[in-house]
């Protein structure tokens, strides 16, 4: 397939089809409407099914049913809609079902605004709904990476029987970049799911469940899940950029802010200041060890997010006082310019280096 010029949202939709997904259940919300729009146009062309659910709560429970039946399925929404889906996501995590959920974040809390934000980091990486559970969270910073990560997300969801979230800010969903799809998986070529509820003819019954009234059983189930999340730790992904030979300031940023940081690196170089970038691609599991190692070569660390400070808590826990850690955030749909990051890096250097 020749390269196409796609919005992040469109590329996410096409990637799901390339991953062999034929089911989408969702409800519209800005700034990710292009995902349901795209799926509503494309799924009928490939024999799939698109349902505009009556609400996000309904969509998340449709996911539960389809995933329980062994199908690849996904949904997408933006911040307030993802909040509504939390009941279903908690049940899906409890029942160990593989689904892919895309959150194209907008400014909150509440209805907030429709412009880009990264203020759902806590919600995405610390559970989101009730109970002890985790999502595997992937954060793209380009349209091509969004497409590639969606395809990986379906494989990871199947491997761990766990919901996987693609966490992108509104700009990642709305910006257009050239995209290429290198592989296509046909639904019929996907590995079988022997645990799925596909009808019990010729075998013992399979049960998909999240209700455990016996406390011993529920405790055992929780520890099983916990051990699964520990096994996921090997999935960590990250990018270190301009960090060879150390740096004055290591900026830790994901998504759009990581893009802005790369421009800031060039601007700072002209001023004789060396900025490095550590970009987590998995936000859960968090690339803690790699961050600690990269930060050893840095004189100071600056975390920048489109939030008032969420990921910075994970960075501070990882760095554990070994380096000064500063924070710079913009919120509400405001986005920092590269010059702001250089200014903040200079301030950090003036105080600590």
């Amino acid at each position, binding site marked *: 397939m*020749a*390269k196409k*010029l796609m919005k992040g949202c*469109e590329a996410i939709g096409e990637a799901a089809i390339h991953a062999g997904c034929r089911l989408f259940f969702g409800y519209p919300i800005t700034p990710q409407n292009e995902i349901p729009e795209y799926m509503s146009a494309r799924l009928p062309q490939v024999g799939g099914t698109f349902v505009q659910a009556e609400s996000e709560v309904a969509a998340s429970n449709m996911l539960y049913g389809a995933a329980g039946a062994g199908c690849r399925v996904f949904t997408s929404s933006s911040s307030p809609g993802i909040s509504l889906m939390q009941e279903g996501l908690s049940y899906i995590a409890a029942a160990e079902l593989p689904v892919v959920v895309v959150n194209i974040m907008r400014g909150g809390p509440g209805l907030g605004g429709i*412009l880009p934000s990264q203020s759902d980091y806590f919600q995405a990486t610390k559970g989101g709904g009730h109970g002890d559970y985790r999502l595997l969270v992937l954060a793209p910073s380009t349209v091509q990476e969004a497409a590639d990560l969606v395809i990986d997300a379906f494989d990871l969801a199947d491997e761990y029987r766990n919901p996987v979230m693609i966490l992108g800010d509104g700009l990642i969903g709305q*910006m*257009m970049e*050239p995209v290429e799809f290198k592989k296509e998986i046909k639904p019929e070529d996907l590995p079988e799911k022997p645990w799925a509820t596909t009808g019990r003819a010729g075998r013992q019954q399979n049960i998909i469940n999240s209700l455990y009234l016996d406390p011993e059983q529920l405790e055992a189930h929780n520890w099983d899940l916990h051990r699964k999340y520990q096994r996921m730790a090997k999935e960590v992904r990250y990018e270190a950029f301009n960090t060879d030979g150390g740096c004055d300031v290591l900026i830790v940023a994901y998504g*759009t802010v990581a893009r802005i940081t790369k421009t800031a690196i060039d601007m700072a170089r002209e001023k004789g200041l060396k900025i490095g970038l550590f970009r987590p691609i998995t936000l859960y599991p968090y690339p803690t060890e790699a961050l600690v190692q990269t930060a050893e070569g840095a004189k100071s660390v600056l975390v920048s997010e489109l939030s008032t400070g969420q990921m910075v808590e994970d960075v501070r826990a990882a760095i554990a006082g070994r380096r000064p850690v500063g924070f710079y955030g913009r919120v509400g749909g405001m986005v920092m310019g590269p010059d702001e990051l250089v200014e903040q890096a200079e301030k950090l250097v003036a105080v600590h280096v």
Partner: protein
Amino acid sequence: MDAMTMPTGRRDAYEVLTAPIVVLVGHFGSGKSEIALNLAFGMRERGRDVSLVDLDVVKPYFRCRLAREELRSKGIQLVAPEGDRFYADLPIIVPQVRGALSRADNENARVIVDAGGEDQGARAFGAMSDLVDPARAELLFVVNTRRPFAGDQAGLTSMLRDVEAAARAKVTGLVANTHLMEETTPEIVRSGLAAARELSGATGIPVRFCAVLRRLLDSLGGVDCPLLPIDRHVLPPEKRSRRGPIGRPMGI
């Protein structure tokens, strides 16, 4: 080469665009806003009294109203909702739109209308197309064949007809705008122009001009079509030279 000159022997899109009102329609992401902004700045440089009407009620990011400050500094009148509705994706048509369209009666006036994508976006223009004398307006259908759903002729033709129905007006010209942003090559532009000509052959609507990134102008020798040099105004956040919210992406 300054902004006003074209390579020798080349026709300029501005020479063929003589109608006082230019309305841009087309697929989502086909390049309407970027072309509208370039035409607005280009016509202003040529001494015209320019109004830019942002009628995109469909998509909230990357609309031409985001260039508000730069437009103002060049003396171009922007017609778009004000206040917090500036950022909304609600079907708001400000009354000034009708005023702008009917003001295009003095000889030096040029009104550029950036409609939203597809028939949904064109409907907003359709609601006031009665104000526009077809003899004084161009309805331009922008084509980028590298966009989803715009790669095949049947799809393009049916979208063009849907847009015409929603706009309650006939498309008078096609704009070849096939590109892959920074990855655009002269071959991509040429094949896009060929696809636009095929659509022209099928519909009888002429290709009015071909939009092309300014850096590619010199490598498009022998292209027999008026060219519109494009300077990118709709930029991702890391390309913005100075700070600003997404609502001010123009390096102001």
